[in-house]
């Protein structure tokens, strides 16, 4: 499903943004990428999406190399990021209408259901919504495309506690029901214990650990404590 082998990425002034990252994810797994600020999480996700050209190594997402512009495969991948802004003068309805045109698998009934779950109205300008509400609109648009893979970069940071839980519950449910593979990058691992199947910890571009949750926790009882423990080692 997702395979990354010996992935490295550098730019002229920063030689080791990512260094020898390796992991393999089976279909339908919930994968959490954790690390400090500037650890390289966003860069990793950018490479998975094909937004950056890797320096070395191999990457495969849905059996395609993101670097070769596999546009048909992108119809099955949903991308959520804090870097994606939305036009403030569009209405929620207009954004969803614009977005759905690109996806043949888009489910209108699911969109209506998701709007209800996230407490969003389809009218009202996006510019008048809060940062968390804007993310919710993006989540609705992303999930309504019925993706096989969801790649989310720091998306939970701006959601309130209820919104975050609702989002994660929804992902878990879709993971179970529809075999959705979730790749979630965050620097807030608290509360992810009941969702994560695999954890990748990065520090300054280097892979500290990649393991199934149980193995990653070792003697710790919580993911956040295990992350802290490994970072302090």
């Amino acid at each position, binding site marked *: 499903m997702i395979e990354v082998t010996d992935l490295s990425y550098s*730019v002229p*002034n*920063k030689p080791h943004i990512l260094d020898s990252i390796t992991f393999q994810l089976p279909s339908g797994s919930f994968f959490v990428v954790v690390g400090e600020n500037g650890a390289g999480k966003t860069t990793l996700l950018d490479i998975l*999406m*094909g*937004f*950056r*050209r890797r320096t070395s190594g191999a990457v495969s997402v849905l059996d395609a190399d*993101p*670097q*070769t*512009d596999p*546009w*048909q495969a*992108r*119809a099955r*991948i949903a*991308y959520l*990021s804090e*870097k*994606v*802004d*939305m*036009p403030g*003068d569009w209405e929620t309805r207009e954004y969803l209408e*614009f977005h759905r*045109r*690109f*996806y043949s698998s888009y489910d209108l009934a699911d969109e209506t259901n998701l709007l209800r779950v996230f407490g969003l109205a389809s009218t009202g300008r996006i510019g008048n919504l809060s940062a968390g509400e804007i993310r919710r609109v993006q989540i609705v648009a992303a999930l309504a495309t019925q993706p096989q893979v969801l790649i989310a970069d720091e998306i939970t940071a701006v959601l309130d506690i209820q919104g975050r839980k609702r989002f994660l519950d929804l992902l878990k449910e879709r993971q179970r029901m529809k075999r959705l593979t979730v790749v979630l990058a965050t620097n807030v691992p608290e509360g992810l214990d009941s969702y994560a199947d695999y954890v990748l910890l990065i520090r300054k571009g280097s892979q500290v650990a990649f393991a199934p949750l149980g193995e990653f926790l070792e003697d710790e009882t919580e993911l956040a404590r295990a992350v802290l423990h490994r970072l302090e080692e």
Partner: protein
Amino acid sequence: MIIHFLKRDFLDFRVYWFIVAGITLAYGMAHHFTKLDSPGSPWSSLQVLLFAYFFLAIMPQSYVLGSVWRTQHQLSRHYLLALPISHRHLFTIQHYRMVVFWIPVLGLCSIYPFLGKGFSSASWDTWMVYYIALLTTCVLFIEYGIWSTVQWEEMTSYLPQSARMRAWLKMLVPIAVFLLVVEPAWMRLLTPIWFPRLKQMPDTFSFFGVLMGATGPPPSLVFPALALFLIVYWIPHNARKWCVTL
């Protein structure tokens, strides 16, 4: 898919098109009621309208290109790149979207030679210079828009402060070089209008003299054609810079 984007752009830029229409109407009325162009002068007031169109054409580029750093944009570049559209197709769509804003400039320039103070009776090489320079200049500004948008994004995200001066120069040099290359053509076309007495100046070693020396038929025709040729090589480079995968 192109229509889907263009329809959306039209809705988003309603005010913009309203301004274009307003300027055109205001010009038309001013021309009709105040006789802007005096019969004896080679100057045409249409050039003012042309400059207005030109500035309006370059304004929306950063909105369309969706740079994520410190620019206003409609949809972020990453949103566009994540869509299930081939990046080659997406890059073409982006060009169509930008060209739409050049329609007033291209439209006015295309008919300009046939209007009152145009040069419909000019020799064939003037025609060639004019249309090649026009095409080159439009493509140049569109490609520079793409180049500078991504360059700006790189500058603000990766580069340490010490490397920014070089990056600034890297951003400015291409436009300076290209403008110098198309300059002979525009000088040849515009000098008789703007500086009619310059042609008679004896000092060919003065600054204007040197400029005038470069406005003869060979450089004014060859340089823009050369620039057009270079731009054709610049487009794939920009495609790779904007889309990464291309």
